[in-house]
């Protein structure tokens, strides 16, 4: 049985496993809130309602309780660790070299023992695994830093980060700790960005992939709701990888970035993606797609570099980009199958940017295409949002049109009066769109 499922063994209902815990917990809370009404309407008698309440109540609150325990456990462990470090630090100058080395190793042993205890004796406790996971990862870094400072070890910060991250990676898998995973992702992004050469960045970014199995397991439901932080860290890691890919494949960087954002949009819409992951992925994809589209409305933003795939690195990033494009394409197919074309906008980004890239290379019309595509997408989302009574979608469409108008006004020779009138028109558009969505009869299509 998977670790994530075992974590939820305390669930009173057999069906409430970790794979779909968050959604079911919301349903359980809804059911408990409905019980008085059902009882009053005579659908259930009082005894049945009480039995249902008792059966589900423990589970309905369990996630919040374990989250609170995890937060306070981590905070407590970090405070204790920081306090010990401060106490040692205050007397650091009075200690001789062997004592410093022993303290540094001792610190590491203590956090390892705590982590091992949590892994062996408390693998289902979120509070234990998260608190000891973060403490172990931070303690490892502190121990390495103390030893290298004591012996005046050579090495740039990126090399230090590398040693720390590589040695800390197993903590993520031993404890299934989201906080340790987050630290690993953030640290590895720092390691990539601090690397002095492109070739080194290229190799280091592969270490981001080492945590991918854990990240995918969490995105598919392991641990349910406690994943927002790790989800955002994963988005930062994905964008860091895109920056490196953009350096390697500088002639097609917008297409590679569009493939990543498209795949994120497609992944966020998959039924098994938990909300804690869908939200960061969707926001990153939508916001990133909008910014990319707007950036490409300037002709200078389109790359003019030649395209060569003659190194292993270029081939690797091209294959990865192709895989992401395939994921995006599947997202488009799924959106079409669901008869929801607006849902296809995110996954269709690679296609849109690819067409623009071809037009730019062949006729220098990439920026023109981007202006048209962004404008039509905005209008399409607005119309679709109003038709489906979806205010978020309608406002996103109008926001996209407004953003396009703003960026065009910055580089157009238009009088202040015209600009002012245009802004008023866009503002009125926002108001009208929202009024139409609000006034629509309930149950309207």
């Amino acid at each position: 049985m998977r670790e994530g499922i075992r974590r939820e063994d305390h669930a009173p209902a057999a069906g409430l496993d970790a794979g779909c815990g968050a959604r079911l917990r919301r349903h359980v809370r809804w059911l408990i809130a409905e019980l008085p009404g059902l009882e009053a309407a005579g659908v259930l008698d009082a005894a049945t309602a009480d039995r249902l309440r008792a059966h589900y109540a423990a589970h309905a609150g369990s996630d919040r309780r374990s989250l609170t325990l995890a937060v306070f456990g981590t905070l407590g462990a970090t405070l204790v660790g920081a306090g010990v470090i401060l106490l040692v630090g205050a007397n650091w100058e009075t200690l001789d070299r062997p004592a410093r080395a022993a303290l540094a190793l001792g610190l590491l042993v203590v956090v390892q023992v705590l982590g091992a205890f949590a892994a062996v004796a408390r693998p289902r406790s979120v509070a234990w695994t998260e608190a000891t996971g973060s403490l172990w990862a931070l303690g490892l870094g502190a121990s390495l830093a103390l030893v290298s400072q004591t012996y005046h070890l050579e090495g740039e910060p990126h090399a230090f980060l590398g040693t720390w991250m590589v040695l800390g990676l197993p903590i993520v898998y031993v404890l299934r700790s989201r906080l340790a995973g987050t630290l690993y992702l953030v640290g590895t992004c720092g390691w990539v960005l601090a690397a002095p050469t492109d070739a080194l960045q290229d190799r280091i970014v592969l270490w981001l992939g080492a945590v991918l199995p854990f990240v995918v397991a969490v995105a598919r439901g392991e641990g349910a709701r406690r994943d927002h932080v790790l989800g955002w860290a994963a988005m930062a890691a994905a964008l860091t990888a895109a920056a490196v890919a953009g350096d390697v494949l500088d002639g097609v960087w917008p297409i590679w970035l569009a493939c990543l954002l498209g795949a994120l949009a497609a992944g966020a819409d998959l039924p098994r993606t938990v909300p804690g992951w869908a939200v960061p992925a969707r926001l990153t994809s939508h916001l990133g797609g909008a910014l990319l589209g707007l950036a490409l409305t300037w002709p200078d933003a389109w790359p003019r570099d030649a395209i060569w795939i003659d190194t292993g690195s270029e081939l690797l990033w091209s294959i990865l980009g192709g895989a992401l494009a395939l994921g995006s394409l599947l997202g488009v197919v799924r959106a079409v199958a669901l008869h929801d074309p607006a849902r296809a906008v995110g996954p269709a980004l690679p296609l849109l940017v690819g067409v623009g890239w071809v037009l730019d290379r062949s006729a220098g019309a990439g920026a023109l295409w981007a202006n048209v595509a962004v404008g039509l997408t905005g209008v399409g989302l607005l119309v679709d949002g109003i038709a489906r009574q979806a205010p978020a979608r309608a406002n996103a469409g109008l926001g996209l049109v407004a953003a396009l108008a703003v960026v065009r006004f910055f580089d157009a020779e238009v009088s202040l009066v015209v600009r002012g009138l245009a802004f008023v028109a866009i503002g009125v558009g926002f108001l009208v769109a929202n009024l139409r969505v609000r006034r629509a009869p309930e149950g309207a299509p």
Partner: protein
Amino acid sequence: MRPATLALLVLACLAQLAVPAWWIVAHERTLAEGTVWRFRTTPVDPYDPFRGRYVTLTFDVARVERAPSWLRSGDRVWAILGTNAEGFAIFERFAPEAPDGAPAVPVRVLYAADGEANLQLPFSRWYLPEDLAPRVEAEWGRLSWDPERVTWAEVRVLGGNAVVEDLFVDGRPIRELVADPP
């Protein structure tokens, strides 16, 4: 706990302990058994976000005026140690492989052209407490104007491993000098 997770736990703990333990053993051994070499220096005071303040040591020997023609930028080579008339360390010659018996340190060639080269030595950091580093820097700034002053790093070398033991100004350890300026 699954056997694979248990194995990973044990391996992770061992690897995490092995790396700092190896650093400690190698450097303690060098400090205990290594030969002392004095390298002329010019310190400045940067900051490492993870390990705190340190004095960057730039060495006279890092700039080679008559470099062998086979040195290329980016090369890692061995610099064989000797001493000049004043007793300070110099690089007598360079070798592509570790020499047998002769005291040497591995160096990276940062730049090599027209018979000159700049080298990166494997010991260029000397960590200090947060409050002491700026004072060392300030004291050095004051003393460095005096042409009579000589600064050097005392470095122990053993089997290619080098550890900075202390920093001196005119024969006085820098900590002592900062505590009691001349």
